[in-house]
């Protein structure tokens, strides 16, 4: 039964190794004519989802491998979503991958990083969690430096590697302190250990350990003030890899944090998360105003989104998990659209270079490519949280859980922070609608070309339409998420 519980991970991992091997042995000609490894990887994703569904029927709500790996409907659901996101990212990176010399490695690394994400989603033990996180992180360091000819890309890789390893070290430090004071690394056991104390009797060192651990996680999810690497890495990495960062990676790490912190959130930790959240929203909103580069702008926007998730997380109410998961799902849908759009941008010769990501290069897009301009407009208004688009509802649920906590508890800080947060979101609306302005109100400059891969544009349009019609399907969607989480 132990093996069956990790069957999805095994499938994806061994499949990706297979694709890696295949890539070595096949001649370049065959690979380029059939996009063989690419198609195989998409088939592999579909297969993994099938295995996940199968696992859902085989296994019911249990922990495996000495209680260190929990598999239940909730984790399976979240894993399927991350695989779906991976599939979309792979479809969007079609042209990028086919131009690469080492296409097999690229695909394999993306899939292995996702395996790491799946492991941290169901980890029930700090050691397993750490291993999953490192599996993901090591693949990501390589991915961000994948554009070997571009100096920015190498810079991004090195920066990410140095800072990321530092964060991993801090993470281990936190885990060791927690272990030192509780005598175990297992989440459930630690939870029992904590519950055996009165609320104010919890050892301060244990709280310290948790804070150190959470600090390292803040780095990984790029919450301010640990966000410095994000704009550089997002800018330097190849666009397809950035899409992967902003969707699959962010989704898995943030959700893993949400799942773990349900064990460890006490008053003081909640307070730290609260302040981190408001700092992230502020830095994300103000930082983006000055950005001229589209990728950096979106990186700052992702920082402020993380801030919103943390705002929901800092409240200890029963629908926190629900609202955070809904927020991350909607955020990932929007990110697939926006970053996917960014990965289509090429200059007139069909190459990527630095200048094309300037936001003014989008000017007049509404005349040259109305469908993409429409999609991006919907996505931008949705990110800004304008109703009736999906982004509004994600913020709405976060605010409901945050404010209900603020009203019920004795300190009303979270309530005031929620007000400040939403005022910052008006500031961030400025730079989202500035992009709309550039596309619709300015005259075309004819600097860029959007790569014409039919299905990429279709995917972006679909993401926009999902945002538009979300309001109609809000009931089934929330029911679906609720039924898997509870």
């Amino acid at each position, binding site marked *: 039964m132990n093996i069956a519980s990790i069957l999805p991970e095994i499938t994806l991992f061994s499949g990706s190794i297979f694709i890696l091997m295949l890539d070595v042995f096949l001649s370049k000609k065959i690979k380029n004519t059939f996009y063989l490894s690419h198609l195989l990887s998409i088939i592999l994703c579909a297969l993994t989802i099938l295995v996940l569904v199968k696992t859902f029927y085989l296994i019911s709500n249990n922990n495996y491998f000495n209680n260190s790996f929990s598999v239940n409907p909730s984790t399976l659901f979240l894993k399927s979503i991350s695989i779906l996101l991976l599939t979309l990212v792979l479809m969007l990176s079609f042209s990028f991958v086919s131009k690469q010399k080492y296409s097999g490695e690229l695909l394999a690394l993306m899939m292995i990083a996702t395996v790491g994400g799946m492991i941290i989603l169901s980890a029930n033990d700090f050691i397993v969690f750490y291993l999953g996180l490192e599996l993901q992180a090591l693949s990501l360091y390589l991915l961000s430096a994948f554009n070997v000819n571009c100096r920015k890309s190498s810079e991004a890789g090195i920066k990410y590697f140095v800072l990321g390893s530092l964060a991993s070290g801090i993470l281990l430090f936190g885990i060791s302190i927690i272990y030192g004071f509780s005598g175990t690394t297992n989440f459930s056991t630690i939870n029992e250990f904590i519950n055996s104390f009165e609320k104010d009797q919890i050892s301060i060192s244990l709280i310290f350990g948790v804070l150190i651990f959470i600090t390292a996680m803040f780095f990984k999810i790029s919450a301010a003030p640990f966000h410095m690497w994000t704009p550089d890495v997002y800018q330097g990495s190849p666009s397809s890899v950035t899409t992967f960062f902003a969707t699959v990676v962010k989704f898995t790490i943030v959700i893993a944090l949400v799942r773990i912190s349900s064990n460890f959130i006490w008053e003081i930790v909640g307070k730290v998360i609260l302040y981190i959240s408001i700092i992230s929203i502020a830095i994300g909103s103000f930082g983006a105003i000055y950005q001229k580069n589209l990728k950096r702008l979106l990186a700052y926007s992702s920082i402020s989104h993380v801030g919103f998730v943390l705002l929901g997380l800092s409240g200890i109410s029963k*629908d926190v998990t629900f609202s955070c998961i809904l927020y991350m799902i909607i955020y990932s849908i929007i990110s697939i659209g926006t970053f996917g759009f960014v990965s289509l941008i090429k200059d007139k010769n069909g190459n990527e270079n630095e200048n094309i990501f300037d936001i003014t290069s989008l000017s007049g897009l509404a005349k040259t490519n109305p469908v993409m301009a*429409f999609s991006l407009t919907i996505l931008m*208004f949705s990110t800004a949280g*304008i*109703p*009736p688009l999906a982004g*509004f509802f994600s913020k*709405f649920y976060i*605010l*409901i859980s945050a*404010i*209900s906590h603020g*009203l019920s508890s004795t300190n009303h800080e979270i309530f005031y922070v*929620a*007000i400040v947060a*939403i*005022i910052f*979101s*008006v500031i961030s*609306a*400025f730079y989202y*609608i*500035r992009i*709309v*302005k550039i596309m*619709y*109100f300015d005259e075309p400059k004819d600097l860029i070309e959007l790569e014409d891969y039919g299905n990429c544009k279709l995917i972006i349009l679909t993401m926009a339409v999902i945002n538009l019609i979300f*309001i109609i399907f*809000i*009931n089934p969607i*929330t*029911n679906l998420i*609720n039924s898997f989480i509870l």
Partner: protein
Amino acid sequence: MNFPIISILIFLPLISSILLLPIRTKNSIFYYSYGVIISIINFIISYKLILEFDDLNSSFQFVENYKIFSNYDIKYIVGIDGLSLLMIFLTTFLTPICLLISLNTIRTRVKEYIISFLLIEGLVIGSFASLDLLFFYIFFEATLIPMFFVIGIWGGENKIYASFKFFLYTLAGSVLFLIAIIVLFLITQTTDISILQKFLPKYLPLEYQKWFFLAFFASFAIKVPMFPFHTWLPDAHVQAPTAGSVILAGILIKLGAYGFIRFSLPFFPQASHYFSNFIFILSVIAIIYASLVALMQEDMKKMIAYSSVAHMGFVTMGIFSFTKQGIDGAIMQMISHGIVSASLFICVGFIYDRLHTKKIKDMGGIAEKMPDFALLAMIFMLASVGLPGTSGFVGEFLTIIGTFKTSKIIAILASFGVVLGACYMLWLYKRVWFSSIHNPNIEGIKDLNKVEFVTLGIMAGFVIITGIMPNIILKYFNILSTNLSYLNNLR
């Protein structure tokens, strides 16, 4: 009651605008006729609504109720009372007119233009008809998106500044409104307006009411706009295309006043009393200050924009007088101003189409060359001044009577505003329509064509009929204003 007539009114324009998206033809007449036909169908439906409406029934009518959120008690509820009925009628009346008058002026991106206006129509009707606080908010906020495009794409030379100012100002106000809605929802577990109206005044203590009132006020005061928050309006009006100004002055800014009547007053009566002096003072400042500013404007559109601020000052003053006359007058003034300022903007638009200027100093002697136009414009000018026999008089007169009962000094100060209104409007008329011709372009100017004449004629007829027989409108909100004036006793 099974026939979802209100939902049809809301979703017919919304869906038909979405259907327009994939169509690609260069023929602008096709788009215009599509838009006009859809909006006229909507007008006919809303006329049917008026015929079937029972003005002696005090509860909401044509109610539809669908559950949307499963885990929260937030429902899609729409229904109308007399106030929403008239506002919806005003919306469906002005939308086809907006499209008709831009037939000759807007030639670029016609498809997007029609889509924007249909979206605005559907969303505004939605906000007037929704009986759920959250859905009101959704419709209310969503109107920002199409209006942002209308100002930004088809506007004047400084359009980008104006569109950003419009968008961010309104958004900033309404996020506080959103917070208040969420807190209200968490306290009461519902956002159903009719339930909230029943229970909030009784059970919510004054100290909480004050905060809720201020949060609602932030949103509505910016939308109305009241005195210190009015600065976006002149910019938006001057830069917007004619039809954009019409929709903005005619309908969108009424949403703020509607919010005061529908939410602030019945939800938080004690807090409304508490703040009524504050609002009186802001309203009087708006009336006198905006009139004085209007006197000094060189741009016709900007002048009418400032006159809008002054007229909306009467509305807010009347609402917070807590008397039947005051509230009646405020609603009357909303409708009258919706028609009158819309027609004045149309008049300016007609002049602009012919002379390509809005500066008053370039005008003079238009009456000589355009006698029909001068006659119709005169009617609107006088209605704006508040001459007896026009709809403007009824509104201003009733608000001042109502306010006089509550606060004499405020009423006296406000009546100075009426005099100032006469000053700037008549002076404007003199400088533009009379006096001698000194601009050579005016020599060759042509009078109104048939479409333009009929458009303005219908509106002039409306102004005069409601001025002489105000009861045909007043009867629809008789019960509403009586109920609201009873809130006075809750003090």
